[in-house]
């Protein structure tokens, strides 16, 4: 009797419960790692979109600067042959700035809504402002109402 009980207590192998526990723990660990990688990928996409918006803002500001901040600047006419930029609804201009125009630009599958505005700060000094907004959450949401991220750039030009 004593010998048989000892044999059962120190049996080889693992029980079904033990095996399932191990599998569940492993699954949780793997799911955690996957969620981490998914978040990293998502954040990388957000960062890429943000960088692209900064480049677009820079492109528009510099182009406008090249024309001395003229009030007749039209990015759709200047850049329309290479970029999908059209006149459309856009965000509001900052307070005190006069809106030059609002546009919509499609680049790398993201639609950016743009407002170009200007303000004469002093004699011969003009501030040129670009505001970009875009929907960061969800794919295919291109309406300005869904825009939840923005980038703003102001540059100055002597004219």
């Amino acid at each position, binding site marked *: *009797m004593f010998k*048989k009980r000892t*044999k*059962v207590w120190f*049996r080889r192998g693992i029980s*079904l419960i033990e*095996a*399932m526990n191990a*599998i*569940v723990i*492993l*699954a949780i660990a*793997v*799911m955690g*790692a*996957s969620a981490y*990688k*998914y978040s*990293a*990928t998502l954040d*990388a*996409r957000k960062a*890429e979109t943000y960088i692209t918006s900064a*480049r*677009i803002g*820079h*492109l*528009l500001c*510099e*182009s*406008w*600067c*090249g*024309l*001395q901040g003229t009030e007749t*600047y039209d990015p759709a006419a*200047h*850049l329309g*042959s*290479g*970029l999908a930029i059209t006149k459309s609804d856009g965000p509001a201009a900052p307070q005190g700035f006069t809106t030059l125009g609002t546009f919509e630009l499609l*680049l*790398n599958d993201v639609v950016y809504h743009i407002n170009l505005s200007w303000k004469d700060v002093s004699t011969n000094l003009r501030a040129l402002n670009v505001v970009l907004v875009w929907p960061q959450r969800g794919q295919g949401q291109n309406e300005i109402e869904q825009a939840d991220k923005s980038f703003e750039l102001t540059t100055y030009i002597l004219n």
Partner: protein
Amino acid sequence: MIMARKRISTQYGFTLIELIIAVAVSLVVILGVAVSLVDSQRSWHRLYNRAFSDVVTDAYVARKTFNAAIRKASKNGFFIDDNGNGIEVCYYADDNSTSVDRYARFYELNGELNLIRGKLDPKVTLEVQTVCGNVSECLFTTAGRSAQMILTLDNGSQTITTVSCALMHNE
């Protein structure tokens, strides 16, 4: 009777039902883990490509080279090809130059963005450099004294469009 009961209570191994259930549960879990692993690996690969693929690094090099050349160019001497696939700017070789004596020409040919640097008057080519490959579309434009480059790069699996603009500061 007593001997038989003892034999049953000390049996080794699993029953067939236990084994089938365990295998089924394990298969489901392993399948889920495998799908999750494959998906995360794909996500990781996409993430890596977003940051380090050849088109991304090509775009970076193209922007840097274009900006560096345009920013030191003269605003009085530049022209663009009729189809917009090339731009030529003039610049000063160094601080001792009294007039623009160098030129830089960007152009796209056979999927490559090239840069020629040379002397002016007489026009002599000094250097031909391939800035980047994988170019599917390239367009140069100007607005006043600024120049823009809109570059689409495609390596077959990834396509990105990058934009760059710089002012020509020199006289």
